[in-house]
């Protein structure tokens, strides 16, 4: 078989198809993304809470330190090596960490479930594409692209919501001190971490459903029942 007779799907075209597919199935995508938005919002809420507490501690104001202790934060003394003044950090409690991990796990399972449903709904479409000459890799790529975009949008919304709620909660609890000492760099980092984790989970969650879709035999397109 000569090279000019390849079967191809340019990346730009697969991107176009994915975007269109998301637009048309907007409501379906919303449901798929909902659990991701919530989990990422929770993650970024916890992260931003930590950032705020650390900022307040490192402000060196003793009354803020005692306010934090009173509010139930665990203050860990940082190993003093380079800095003259001992810097303290606020560690997320083990319980908090576990709840975050658990929520992310539950969210991933939710994504796998929603995507498997989506694949089932699209059996006919996938089968048809294969009859038209699509390779397994085309189908795989379409699903991964869609999940990536869903992940990016969902995590961005979730991360923003988490930060917003976190800041509001901080304001209510500690007043303006919470925001004044909040390091912008840490805030940005937390935002990026939340988005990164969200996109990774979204793509991770679609891997198995996408493989199921890609391996489907074109004969499925011939089945007459819905």
């Amino acid at each position, binding site marked *: *078989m000569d090279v*000019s*007779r*390849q*079967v*191809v*799907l*340019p990346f730009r*075209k697969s991107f176009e*198809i994915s975007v*269109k*597919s998301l*637009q*048309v*199935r907007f409501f379906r995508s919303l449901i798929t993304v909902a659990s991701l938005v919530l989990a990422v919002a929770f993650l970024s809420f916890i992260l931003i809470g930590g950032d705020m507490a650390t900022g307040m501690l490192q402000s060196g104001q003793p009354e803020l330190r005692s306010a934090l202790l009173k509010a139930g934060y665990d203050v860990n003394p940082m190993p003093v090596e380079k800095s003259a003044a001992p810097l303290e950090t606020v560690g997320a409690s083990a319980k908090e960490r576990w709840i975050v991990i658990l929520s992310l796990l539950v969210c991933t399972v939710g994504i796998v479930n929603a995507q498997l449903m989506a694949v089932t709904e699209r059996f*006919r*479409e996938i*089968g*048809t*594409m*294969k*009859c*038209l*000459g*699509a*390779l*397994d890799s*085309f189908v795989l790529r379409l699903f991964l692209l869609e999940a990536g975009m869903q992940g990016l949008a969902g995590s961005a919304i979730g991360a923003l919501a988490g930060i917003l709620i976190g800041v509001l909660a901080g304001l209510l609890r500690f007043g303006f001190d919470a925001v004044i000492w909040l390091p912008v760099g840490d805030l940005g980092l937390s935002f990026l971490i939340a988005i990164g984790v969200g996109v990774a989970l979204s793509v991770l969650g679609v891997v198995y459903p996408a493989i199921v879709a890609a391996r489907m*035999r*074109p*004969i499925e*397109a*011939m089945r*007459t029942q819905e």
Partner: protein
Amino acid sequence: MEQQAHNIVRVTEVTKSFKMGTQTIQALKGVDLTIRAGEYLSIMGPSGSGKSTLFNMIGGLDKPSTGKVFIDEVDIAQLDAYELAWLRNRKIGYIFQTFNLIQVMTALENVTLPMIFAGMNNDEATEKGLELLGLVGLRERHAHRPQELSGGQQQRVAIARSLANTPAIILADEPTGNLDLTTGEEIISLLQLLSQERGVTVISATHDYKMLSVSDRVVWIRDGRIDKIESRDQLNISVGTIASKDA
């Protein structure tokens, strides 16, 4: 083209059995069939006769349990996934009972998709897509999505799509099954026109008797075997409306 001379599809001693739980069901019990290039062939038979199984075999969608299927003298059992995709993309155009247009795409995008897979650039594909839509009389409706088109219109888009990469074979699975009588007749005469003017081999699985009058040959399948093969002049079923239209 030296079409009349060569065999586009050759099926030799094909059997196919499925496992249904503990039972093994033999859908095909040894079928031999040769289809000439440019022919309009209908496969008729009641449901459960093995008609669909044979049809899927011919289309390279399924592999036989024993025996061989050759498309253009290539044994399809020998092809890898990549070559099969190529075959489906270039050699065969599929038409389905349920139209199977991709719902999220417009008529034009549906028609151009196989050309994109074939590596054609966008402008060229659009031009050819519009031309094919013109051929089926839907050029003006190229920007419509499938749900905005009637059943007959959707099937015509599907026919345009099946012609995208100028295939040698068009496989039509009950193409009129979901259409009313008149629309079905329109689709049949369109398929006939294509086979006559473009020399495409049309193979259709059907139990629509309207199909008979346009077929060069009809293969009757019964109980996993070929019951009889009739050529057009042997057919004596009256299909008044179509026959008079063609005359």
